[in-house]
Structures are given as C-alpha cells and as structure tokens.
C-alpha cells in the first residue's frame, strides 16, 4: 500500500529563500494492491508532478510518501526500484539497441555490479515481452519503432522490473485505438490477476471511467477530488474540473455542449 500523508507537490523556486510554488496540497491518499487509479485533469494540472513525487523523482514540499509503511526517503535507491516502476509520457531516444535489450534494462535492480543477466532474468524478460504482446518487435532496433511501439516496450520494461506498484504518465497517448483497448485490458490484467497497483494519468476520460477503480481528479487551480467513476458522471465534478468558457459540460447528457 502506498500512503500519501499531507503531501504538497510543487517546485522550489529558490533554494536559499525557501520560496516555492505549491501545485497541489493533497488530502491523505492511499493506493492499495490490486487497485487501478486513474489520474485525470487538464493540461498543466499537475498530474506528472504528482507521479514524479510518488516515485521520488522529486521531493514533496510538505508531508511524506509511505510505501508499505516505510517512508520513501528512508528506502535505498535499490529498494525503491524494486517497489515502484514508472512509465514516462515520452519514450527515451536511444540508438543501437534492440527492443529486447531495452526491456532487459528492467532487470537492473536485480543484477550484479556489471549488470550481467542470468537465466532467470532472461526468462522474465521473455515473459514480459510475451505479456505485452511485442514478440515481433523484440529483435528490432528501438530507434526504428514508432512512438506507440516504443511505449509498449517501456511498459514491458516496467513489467520486467517486477514491482508491486506501477506509475504511468500518459502511457497511452501515442497508442492507436486498438492498442489502447489492448493496453487497458492488459492493465486490468495487471491489477486483477497479478495484484499490482497501477496509477496512471490519462486524458482519455472514456477509458479512465471504464477501467478505473478510483479516479483522482485535478484542476489547474489546485483542486483535487477522489471519487468513483460513477460519481464523476453523475455529479457536477466534470463541469467543475473540465469545463471552461468554451466547453460547457452537460451533466444530463454526458457530453460537452457544442
């Protein structure tokens, strides 16, 4: 279980003067094993900032993140890398490496000082590639894949990392329609069959509502609400969080006014 206690996300503007820009002051939150949480909100609402904070890629301005009751700051780099895996919104840009080898990077926390893979590692790599269904890509050069294919490879890498918690920052932004459906099924498999907890940010409301157990809804002025998908549709939340002067949400009709 990941617990956020009194966390404020944001950026320090000046180290010496301790002035900072708080993006969100969050209530206490929990991510349970086997749970799928979708993080939704408009551009610039701080979704990535929250994901980065939970992964310890940036420090919270207040409060702490706990993983299985241990403060993330007390965990070693290695221990943390066995707890949380991350998929970022843009795939990396590497030449001269096969997709298979990128997936194998996920074994980093488990290998020795020179990073040699053993037979168990190879089996896990193959299994991850199979789970994501990218066997056809595995021998291709990573740089020759499309963005969507690259993102699938990165998800396989994260699977290969064998973490109980997976954070994904808009993993489906580059995927085509059928891949998106495939991916959502895969993510549901991760939570239901493998009992992993997944937090993913997305702009695809439809998919989020369909597959999430819980929604975390953010807006650009620091507002934050936790709710179930059903509640989002029936309340005025969508109007408050996604509406604007030009896009007016019609609660009764489940669509934006045109």
């Amino acid at each position, binding site marked *: 279980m990941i617990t956020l206690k009194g966390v404020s996300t944001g950026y320090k503007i000046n180290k010496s003067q301790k002035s900072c820009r708080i993006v969100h002051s969050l209530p206490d939150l929990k991510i349970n094993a086997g749970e799928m949480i979708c993080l939704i909100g408009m551009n610039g609402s701080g979704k990535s900032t929250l994901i980065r904070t939970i992964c310890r890629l940036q420090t919270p301005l207040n409060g702490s993140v706990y993983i299985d009751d241990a403060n993330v700051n007390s965990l070693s*780099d290695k221990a943390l890398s066995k707890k949380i895996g991350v998929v970022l919104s843009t795939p990396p840009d590497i030449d001269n490496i096969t997709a298979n080898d990128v997936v194998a*990077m996920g074994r980093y926390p488990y290998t020795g000082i020179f*990073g040699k893979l053993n037979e168990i590692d190879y089996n896990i790599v193959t299994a991850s590639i199979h789970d994501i269904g990218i066997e056809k890509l595995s021998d291709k050069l990573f740089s020759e894949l499309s963005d969507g294919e690259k993102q699938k490879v990165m998800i396989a890498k994260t699977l290969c990392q064998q973490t109980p918690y997976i954070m994904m920052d808009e993993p489906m932004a580059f995927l085509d329609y059928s891949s998106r459906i495939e991916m959502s099924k895969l993510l549901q498999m991760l939570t239901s069959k493998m009992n992993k907890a997944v937090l993913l940010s997305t702009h695809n409301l439809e998919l989020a509502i369909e597959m999430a157990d819980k929604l975390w809804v953010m807006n650009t002025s620091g507002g934050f609400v936790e709710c179930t998908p059903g509640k989002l549709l029936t309340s005025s939340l969508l109007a408050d969080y996604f509406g604007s002067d030009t896009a007016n949400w019609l609660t009764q009709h489940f669509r934006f006014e045109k």
Partner: protein
Amino acid sequence: MKNSLKLIIAVALIAGLVFLNLCVGSANINFEEFWNYFIGKSCDSTNSFIIGYRINSSLTAVFAGAGLAVAGLLLQTLFNNPLADPSVLGISSGASVGVACCLLIFGSSQLSVLHFTPISRQMVVSAASFIGTIPVLLLLLLLSKRTNNKLVILITGLMFSFINSSIVTIVEFFSMKESLYSYVMWGMGSFSNVPSEMMTVFIVSIAVVLTMSFFLIKPLNAVLLGDNYAANLGVNVKRLRFFCILFSGVIIALITAYCGPIGFIGLAVPHIVRMLLKTSDHAMLLVACIIFGAALSLLCLLITRLPGFDGALPVNVVTAIIGAPILIKILFTPSIKNAK
C-alpha cells in the same frame, strides 16, 4: 562480422602499428639491432636511445589514445550529447592556463625554462599543466552537486574554457617571445614528451582510472534511458555524474599534462566505435574505445614521423586531419541494415 572478431582484428592492428612505429623514423634501424635491444645485449648507444625513445612514445600514444577515447565516451553518455569531448568541460583549458603561467614566470626571470635541461623543463611544464587542471576539476565537481540540470554543467564547462582562454591571452600578452614559442609548441601536442622516469607513473595512473571506469558500465547503460528512467531503476544519477566527471577529469588532466591538449580523439573514437560495433552496451563500448583509441593515436603517431616529416609534425595537426575523414566516411557508409 561478430563484434569480438572486430576487436581481435583491432588488437592485431595495434600490434602492427606499434611495430611500424618502432621501425619507421628518420633514423634507420635494422632488425638485428632491435633484437639485440630486446634480449638485453649491448648495442650501439645511439640506436638503443632511439629505440627506447620510440618505445616510450608508442606506449604514450597507446595509453593517451585509450584514455582520451574513454573520457570522451563517459562524457558523451553522461551528457547525452554527441558533441561532448574532453575539451568541453574546460579541464584541458585549465591545463593551458597552468602552462602559460608557468612559462611566463619562468620565462621572464633568471629561472628561464630555456636554461633548464630538456627533461626537467618538461617536468615543470607537466606539473604546471596538472596543477592548472585541478581548480577547474574541483569547481566542476562542486557545481555538479548543486544542480540537477546536466546542460548547466556542460555550459559551465564551456564558460570555464572561455575564462581560461582569456587568461591565457592575458598571460601571452605579457610573455616573452621564447615563452610564447614554448607555449605554442606545447599546445600542438606530442606523444614523445613523457620522460622515461615518469613513464611508469603515467601508464599506471591511466590504467588505474581506466580499470575503475569499468565499474560505471551498469549505471551508464541505464542512463541511456534518460535520467528519470535511470533513477527509477535505482541509479544514483548525481553520484554517477560525479564519478564520470572525476574519472574523465583525471584522465584528461594526466594526458594534457604530459602530451599537451590532444584534440579530436576523445570526440571521434566513441562515434567510430558505436558505428562499427552497432551497440550501446557500455561493456563493449568501453573495451572498444580503449582498443580503437590506442589504434587511432598510434596511427597518428606513425604519420607524424613518416620519412620526410623528420619526426617533427605535431600530433594535433594529424589527429583531426586523419580522424575527421574517417569519422565522416563511417557516418555516411550505409550499413546493411539501413540499406534494406
């Protein structure tokens, strides 16, 4: 062709180049003399001096080439920038300041370097060069701990270069003609200036740093995914950065101290190696940089002393003239895979 085979061929190439470097030069030495030298039999003293000199410069070329190539590789991966090379961090420019100041001080007083014996003069210049690199290296390490942004470090290094070259110009302005000449000669680079007394120190210290850089293979591979992915895999990116700058800095400081600011090898070899081997695994890249770096600098050394040049061509002239076309040729040669 398998990569290990390519490496074996390259090693054979090194052996051949060393052999040529020993044989070729303005003085002709026949095989019998070499044989006598190596089995320790007394031979003509001039010849044995020349053979010793050629062995020393070949060894210097091997280790300087290997060191510069590895330093270039570490920096290119660390900064994720194909244009990074030993000169970008401003470390070799620190060496220039050291040497320029030394020549100014000694050149303008009774203690003129020109009165020194060649060997002690070389030692003074090397020491000054090494001392000059230390403040730059320390400042860089200190500043790299204060920022998360590697572009900032890269630009800081560039700024150090600018500051240092201004200082050098000021020093040059106040220098005497003779000191200026010495400075210019130092700046052209040479593999033949390591005094035989210092040879062991030079080789051992570079070999030690090269060996230690093998412990960076794993995090260097992970950092190819970008700093965020690497951090998520458990890499301490700041510590990696510290060690990359430290290792490459020490290598550059040592080599610049003894050979002058040798350009181009550190930039070109990592690219040549990546193109030839088609890999981004640093275990392979590191070994290959050591081998190809040594080979390229031996080739350059050989060219500087082809008959006709009278053993006097500066290394820096040759590294770029030879290295740049090789690199361009490789970049534009379509591989089988791309041609499909």
